[in-house]
């Protein structure tokens, strides 16, 4: 599989978004995000996870020592250090897009994984795709820094389909949020 070129990917994504989204659409989405923000306080979570990740980044984890960066359909792909469920990459989607027929949840739990290529910790949003029957392909259960259910912002057992039309779990993405440093 082709190695992921983050710069080119970022450029492509930005161009695609700019080409497809009207300003009104972007503003509407931003508005929705602001409305949803009080219910899902992402920033404090990000900061807390960033502190974890910074510590973890100095030492690595048992998962990161054996992780790889070229095959996003394998459970040991670096971003999947805390994933629990079916990989969307095996179901017609990717690490950051839902397969057709399913819908991305606007909510997620946040983990941090170490990229073996640069040994830096990145924030990863584990977002579920919902509405279609369970994909049942590439089922992975990784638990790096996964927390119990009473700490929901870092728990991978909750069905993160809040805010979608359906709670039917289909698969999980591992969306790169940014550096956790």
């Amino acid at each position: 599989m082709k190695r992921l070129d983050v710069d080119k990917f970022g450029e492509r994504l930005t161009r695609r978004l700019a080409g497809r989204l009207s300003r009104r659409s972007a503003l509407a989405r931003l508005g929705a995000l602001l409305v949803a923000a009080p219910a899902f306080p992402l920033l404090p979570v990000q900061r807390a996870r960033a502190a974890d990740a910074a510590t973890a980044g100095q030492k690595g984890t048992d998962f990161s020592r054996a992780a790889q960066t070229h095959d996003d359909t394998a459970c040991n792909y670096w971003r999947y250090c805390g994933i629990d469920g079916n990989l969307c990459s095996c179901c017609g989607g990717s690490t950051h897009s839902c397969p057709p027929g399913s819908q991305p949840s606007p909510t997620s739990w946040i983990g941090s994984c170490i990229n073996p290529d640069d040994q830096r910790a990145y924030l990863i949003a584990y977002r579920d795709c919902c509405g279609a029957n369970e994909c049942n392909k590439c089922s992975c259960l990784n638990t790096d820094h996964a927390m119990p259910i009473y700490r929901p912002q870092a728990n991978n057992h909750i069905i993160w389909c809040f805010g979608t039309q359906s709670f039917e779990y289909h698969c999980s993405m591992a969306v790169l949020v940014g550096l956790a440093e």
Partner: protein
Amino acid sequence: MKRIAHEAVKSAARIAALSMVIGGGLAAAAWAAQPGGAPPPVLQSETAGVTPFQGLTAHDLTYSGLDGVTTGGVRIIDGDTARTVATVFSSQYANFAWAPDHRTLYISETYWTLGNRGTREDVLSIYGGPTLSNEGEIALPGRLISDPKTHTFALSADGRYGYDYSFQPAPAVSVIDLRARKVAASVEIPGCGLVFPFGKRGFASLCADGSLAVADVNAQGKYAVHRTKRFFDVMTDPVMDESVSDPHSGLALFTTYDGWVHPVHLADTPRFDKPWSIEKAAGLSPATSHVGQITWRPGGQVPFAYEPSRHRLFALMHEGPPWSFEKPGSEIWVLDARSHRLLHRWDVPESAYLVAVTQDEHPLLFALSEEWLWVMDPDTGAVLRATKIVTPGLARVRGGQ
């Protein structure tokens, strides 16, 4: 090819003819055995019905299927025979509990009017009677939809109240009056989750800062919630969701990823005993979260079972690194929760995800792998019997948590 097929057909015909001859001979011999050579009586016609349900026995195991992997349903298996007794319908992501009469089954579950969409209905379904049939539902204000977790639903020890953990995503506990068949209160527990009942109407929840939220009714009959001190460090070694508790005595054994057991006597003012290490009980160094430390650790889906009468804690154990708390157990360790001693280490035939122990005088130990239920003797570790099962989610026994 054709020739072989022809020969095969011929051989099959010969076997069939031989069978008929043998069968006919046996039938003739049976006729001859009847007094006076009379043919056997014609079998009586039958009426289809439902096998009467005798109630959950002390050696029965009730388990649910693992959502996403298998179909739902709550299934009962007789531990003395390893045979299926009954199956009750449930939705995905359901939890369940038996009333103290051992005949009434409550299932906390969620449905949508159009399958995967439409109007959502969260209900507590009631099953019982001689055929274990549906006896109605109690509407719930919400539920947590998650992989199976034992402590998302529980009954008070006397069976009068049900407690259902809700996450919408604001965390709360619905207190259900099971006699009046209605939700009596919705108790908000911000920053906390799960439910561990104690006393007549009290419950405790684990909190994200390492403390407990304790809820009980005050003099005005309303629930009041307060926090205890922090007794574990959630960032370095959190208490597992699947820690065991005994609703009758109020003793909870909150156990961490690294195998530290925090005994807490649940009450309005909980009493915290000194923590002890499962690994130390076995003569090993305590497990830590240091990268690369491969040692014995508790793990699995439901990794602990408790037998209050003998204070025995059963733990599924595996050798693994930090954060491997969901790896299945290759051994069951039997620990004395009073003296903090390791009593036995039993091998399981196949790595097990769930463990359960019956609560009677002659207990049975259950180990559940992805496909098998192993019925074991908790005193010798001997495998008494086994049966194939659907991939299990949760498991409960009579009188257990």
